[in-house]
């Protein structure tokens, strides 16, 4: 307690297998308050599994995950811990039967037991923050992909999390909608939110992150500052992967 040097999130030797398939083979890294790290790597290397382990949607086989002084893998109050961790993912996960406003309110009223009026004010404020004041009463099916993802971000923010996880938040979006989501994320980062992001958006990674973690086959191959990662990656695999991404998505420099 009160340890100033302690990271906000500290992952130690995380291991996970699905059947015979070793997905995470000893992943360790940490995140200080206000820091922003991006995990990149080929698909199927366990990037999403790392995030899913952080809020224990997937239970690791070994290792520790510390959120401040709570150990997540073994804690017995996971529902409380999850309130501290916002989670935004590719599929949005919006509640189809609720308006944008009610989507954001649900966690407040049902989990945090915030009175309805207060929850509504808070939800409106969060939706304003992601630029969605004009669709408060719209249902998810009436929103564009970019709007849906911003509702999901507002919903996560409403819980006042200490940490935000983003799992390929723009991968399901049409190219012209990606920008609006990345802008919201960029603004969040600038305002000091601690973020752990899995993405293929190298422009975002380069502009926003403090560190880029390159993962392959369940291991961290390389982690370094974006400048170093993009200008002079140490590992030949990192170089190869970034080269491929450049071909697919264009240069990371924007």
């Amino acid at each position, binding site marked *: 307690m009160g340890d100033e040097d302690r990271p906000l999130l500290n992952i130690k030797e995380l291991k996970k297998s699905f059947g015979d398939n070793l997905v995470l083979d000893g992943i360790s890294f940490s995140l200080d308050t206000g820091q922003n790290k991006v995990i990149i790597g080929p698909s199927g290397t366990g990037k999403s599994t790392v995030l899913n382990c952080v809020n224990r949607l997937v239970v690791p086989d070994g290792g520790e995950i510390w959120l401040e002084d709570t150990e997540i893998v073994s804690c017995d109050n996971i529902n409380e811990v*999850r309130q501290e961790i916002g989670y935004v*993912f590719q599929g949005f996960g*919006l509640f*189809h039967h609720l308006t944008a406003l009610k989507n954001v309110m*649900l966690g407040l009223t049902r989990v945090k037991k915030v009175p309805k009026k207060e929850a509504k004010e808070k939800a409106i404020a969060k939706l304003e923050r992601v630029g969605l004041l004009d669709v408060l009463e*719209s249902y998810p*099916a009436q929103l564009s992909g970019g709007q849906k993802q911003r509702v*999901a971000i507002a*919903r*996560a923010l409403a819980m006042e999390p200490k940490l935000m996880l983003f799992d390929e938040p723009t991968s399901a979006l049409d190219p012209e909608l990606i920008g609006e989501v990345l802008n919201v994320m960029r603004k969040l980062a600038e305002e000091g939110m601690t973020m752990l992001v899995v993405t293929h958006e190298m422009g975002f990674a380069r502009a926003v992150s403090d560190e880029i973690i390159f993962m392959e086959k369940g291991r961290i191959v390389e982690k370094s500052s974006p400048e170093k990662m993009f200008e002079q990656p140490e590992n030949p695999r990192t170089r190869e992967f970034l080269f491929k991404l450049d071909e697919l998505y264009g240069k990371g420099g924007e």
Partner: protein
Amino acid sequence: MLEFLTEFMIIDIFVSNFGRLMSGLRFTLTLTFVVMFFGTIFGVLLALGRSYGIKPISWVCTAYIELIRGTPMLAQLFILYFALPAYGIRFSAVTVAYLGFTINCAAYQAEYTRGSLESVGADQYKSAYSLGMKRWQTILFVVLPQAIRWSIPAWTNEFIYILKYTSLAYIIGAPDLMTQGKFIASRNYQFFRVYFIAAIIYLVIVLISTWIIDKIEAKFKIPGFG
């Protein structure tokens, strides 16, 4: 048409037996509404038990649903009315009608509801859990409200089925529309005409119900969804 009706005394028979026919209709409608009400409630509980219950509960619910759906409704009524008295359990025809149709309706409603519960995608569980919602909260506040909306068309279809299936009550002599028809016919020997009238009454009620149900379905529709 009018000539046909007068020539075959359809209107005469209808008018002179109006009270008895209406009392039969009243019983049929009451039976249908009560059966639908309890059948739907038990059906939702059975579906929740089958989908989310711990194993023994899930098995019991599954066994119930499959047993009831796998046997004829007529056999179920016979067992309740004719077989149980042999074991000292005696119900009146009216009780058997209410009980038997509710037991049957619940099993079907359960399966419709289960299909709807399963149509709510994994992404929504994922986001509910990551907000810190417990499993029961997720089911109650996220999954069930959507499943119920998805189920409305199937449920209302079941209403039409039950409305017509309750005519089986005449086998055990509960005083529904068919039984009253049989009673009238057994006195005036106009079997064809009386059953024709009964069929028309069923048809009119079904058409009116369908119209009302369409209104209800439209009201519960989620914009841009289903």
